[in-house]
């Protein structure tokens, strides 16, 4: 049984059809990266997976439970699906430590003291133990994003969805976030990442999905898809992002 199964998902906002029949699967430990021009439904697709948006048609299963079934209690499944936002969305009134521990207390019913010990471990994992007492406004974008990854990790998720995790960051801060993500990938975490960081793709991705105009046009291992794409559209898009993001950051 696949950890994630997406079957023929459609989503429209008013007259605008954003997703036009997307299907794919992920097994435990898979690292997949979704690339594609802006406005092609990458974020919408991710948001459908944890129920922040409901698809109009199609079904989604996480570890055998159908997310899209109205009878499913989505609050019970969401801790299993980590979500990392482009704009971090750390809880602004809480310290880094409380940001990571609050889910354990409120959602998992853990004791505050136990939750804090666990949260501290997760902060250690993203290299930010010393920022435990800092508020989001006191941290850099890169640090905030690492705390938000720790917040997702604390819930012990089966997979983590990353929605353009480095797009809102200054260039010099991207590396520290990618490093955390690469460590996670190497540690066996199942990850679905919307990103145009070619370096990340090359380093850890098992498969790249090219999403264009609401459909997965092409998919393949980075070594094939990045060097020898089958479709002209994929080729043009890759040229654009390589020009924009550069190959050099690969080594980051």
């Amino acid at each position: 049984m696949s950890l994630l199964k997406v079957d023929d998902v459609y989503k429209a906002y008013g007259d605008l059809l954003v997703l036009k029949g997307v299907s794919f699967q992920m097994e435990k430990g898979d690292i997949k990266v979704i690339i594609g021009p802006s406005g092609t439904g990458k974020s919408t697709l991710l948001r459908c997976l944890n129920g922040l948006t409901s698809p109009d048609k199609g079904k989604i299963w996480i570890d055998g439970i159908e997310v899209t079934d109205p009878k499913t209690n989505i609050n019970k499944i969401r801790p299993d699906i980590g979500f990392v936002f482009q704009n971090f969305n750390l809880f602004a009134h809480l310290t880094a430590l409380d940001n990571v521990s609050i889910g354990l207390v409120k959602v998992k019913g853990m004791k505050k003291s136990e939750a804090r010990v666990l949260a501290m471990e997760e902060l250690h994992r993203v290299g930010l133990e010393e920022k435990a007492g800092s508020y989001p406004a006191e941290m850099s974008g890169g640090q905030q994003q690492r705390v938000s990854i720790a917040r997702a990790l604390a819930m012990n998720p089966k997979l983590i969805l990353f929605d353009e995790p480095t797009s809102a960051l200054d260039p010099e801060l991207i590396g520290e976030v990618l490093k955390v993500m690469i460590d996670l990938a190497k540690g066996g975490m199942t990850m679905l990442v919307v990103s145009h960081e070619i370096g990340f793709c090359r380093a850890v991705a098992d498969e790249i999905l090219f999403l264009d105009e609401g459909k997965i046009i092409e998919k393949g291992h980075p070594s094939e898809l990045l060097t020898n794409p089958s479709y002209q559209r994929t080729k043009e898009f890759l040229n654009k992002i390589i020009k924009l993001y550069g190959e050099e950051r690969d080594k980051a």
Partner: protein
Amino acid sequence: MIYQTLLKEFPYLLKGVLVALELLAAFMSLGFVIGILLSVMEVYGNRWTSMVAVMIERFFRGVPAVVLLFLFYYGLSDIYNISAFTAATLALGLRTAAYQSQIFKGAIQTVGSGQMEAARAIGMSKVQAIWSIIFPQALRFGIGPWSNEFASELKDTSLAYTIGVVELLRRAKYIVSYTYGNALIVYGLCAIIYLILVRSGNTILYRIESKLQMPGFETRRERG
């Protein structure tokens, strides 16, 4: 002569202050609870709950306070034996609820939808997210405007005079009546007492606001 009377009647006036403060506490608490309810209905409710909230809010903001007082006192007296104090609590409480709902609504919207999404994404229910994530932040954004509402309602306790609540202003009026004049001095003292009350109230709220300051929530006003 009048000064001696005032000195003698000062405790009588102070009792009026107490009545005014009791009234204020009663209707501000009512307004706080209902105001939060209305704002949550408006921001997070469905079409119907939000429409109901908007209608309630428009009504109580659109009708003059004295008319509300008459409605709740003389109007309700026809069907139910209501005390002037209770009528004033209801009338002014629902009116401030309407104003407070606007303050809370603005504060909630300032918090931003990303906070709600992040809370839901780790598995919190909507109610949990509102309670543990949205409210603590909205409170910090809202306390400045709320202080203004507090000051204006403190002054408006004097409107309860019109339906016979024996608060500060009515007591002053009694003194004016039985000393045959001295309106300027007696009402002047009354004005000074209101002024002191408003300033002390604002100072306390300003202190609370300062205590709630934290990085990312620098909402502090220039003066309290």
